[in-house]
């Protein structure tokens, strides 16, 4: 539990040290008779929005479909927790960077000199 509170809202970086979002949510595994355990971190999608405003999150999910496609990264792929949370993932293909790719391909990439 303490771990969940520590990593929540920390910066997530991928194997190449590229920023890929914040720890927007934490998946807890409830185990009977033993303390709950962090089983995954959630990055992107509407996850963070749920913590800001439920109505807004519900509206966004209707618009985007599903949970807005967050990336669930299993705790086994977390390499270290320090200033940032480093994970063993390629962010380039991760759904966490869906909007980054969208902005790059649709807007920024089309401007000369990008």
């Amino acid at each position, binding site marked *: 539990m303490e771990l969940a509170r520590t990593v929540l*809202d920390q910066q997530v970086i991928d194997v190449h040290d590229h*920023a890929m979002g*914040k720890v927007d949510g934490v998946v807890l595994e409830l185990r009977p008779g033993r303390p709950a355990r962090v089983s995954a971190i959630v990055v992107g999608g509407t996850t963070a929005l749920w913590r*800001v405003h439920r109505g807004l999150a519900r509206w966004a999910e209707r618009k985007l479909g599903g949970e807005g496609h967050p990336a669930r990264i299993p705790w086994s792929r977390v390499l270290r927790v320090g200033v940032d949370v480093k994970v063993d993932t390629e962010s380039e293909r991760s759904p966490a960077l869906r909007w*980054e*790719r969208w902005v*790059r391909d649709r807007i*920024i990439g089309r*401007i000369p*000199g990008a």
Partner: protein
Amino acid sequence: MSKLFEIALGIVTGIGGFLETGSLATAAQAGAAFGYRLAWAILLGTVCIAFLIEMAGRLAAVSHHTLPDAMRERFGITFFVVVFAVVSLVSFLVLASEIGGVCLALQFASGVSFRWWALPVAGLAWLLLWKGNFGLIEKGTSLLGLVTLAFVVGALRLHPAAGALASSLLPSLPTHEPAKYWFTAVSIIGASVSPYLFYFYSAGAVEDEWDVSYLGINRLVSGLGMGFGGFVAVAVLVCAALVLHPLGIQVDRYEQIPLILATPLGRAGFVLFVASLAIACFGAALEIGLQLAYLAAQGFGWRWGENLRPREAARFALVYTVALPLAALVILAGVDPLKLTVFSMALTALSLPITVVPLLVLMNDRMYLGDQGNGWVSNAAVLGISFIACVVALVAIPLQLFGGG
């Protein structure tokens, strides 16, 4: 040697970067309306911003976190969104004011109305950010910003009475027009303590990979840099106090302000004023455009960095690509740049507790600062100044907006 160079560069940045449309306009208004009397507000604002800059640098050097990053982590998303919204709004209005300042300088030089310069100016700023190489741009505008030292020359030419000026560094009660006096005081403080300054500084320190060995440099740079910067703002106030105040001229339009330098220095003074206004405001516009992008990227975990190509940090680039033209539209719409500037500065003062208190909490958190946390002096000074400024702004803004007296 290289550390000495960095200190020198930091101080130059402080001098060249301190003066922008906000501190220029508010200091000129204060000097014209009240003579030296409001010099204390510049001193108070300068002390406050020096402490804040030092803190933002120390946070970056010790914890390797930028300010938005640490805020998001420490206070969670909900609180961060509130701070994000307030800082973005205030910074956006200041950005529009700075673009307005550049446009006015171009109008004074060319005769073509400031409104028509808004889009070209924003376009040029965007191009510089887009093409990157910010280190060069920042150092370039800071070095060119030394032209603002012309105000010091102008002030000396006017032979200010040192004793009277020194005694006005202590706060005093107004003798006439109290509403205007307090409103001008808070807009001066708001102009000095613009949040973009310390957010920008913290991003720069992380980008330059500061560590604890930079703490000494950081202390010197923030203290001396801001100190000299405040000195230039006092020089503006002195010029206005000695040129406009004796004639009973109050500053209602920006067009009146160049006269404070043209009177003591002649045609050179006029040219130096126009150059100072254009360079100082353009440099500030670049910094604010970037700071808006830093704030969003660092708070929401996007890839950021001015040395990355735009397509490598697409959302980061998107922020300034949208913010600059949007701010230009405010000026193109014909909003009076002086009114916009002064109002933005007062609003900055009003929002100080929201922008400053989270930083103070972080600076006293051993998780981030270890044994490099704040002492009671810096805590008390920043907390005191920002709350007083906020309360005074809360009273003075409605009086100024609706009272007219």
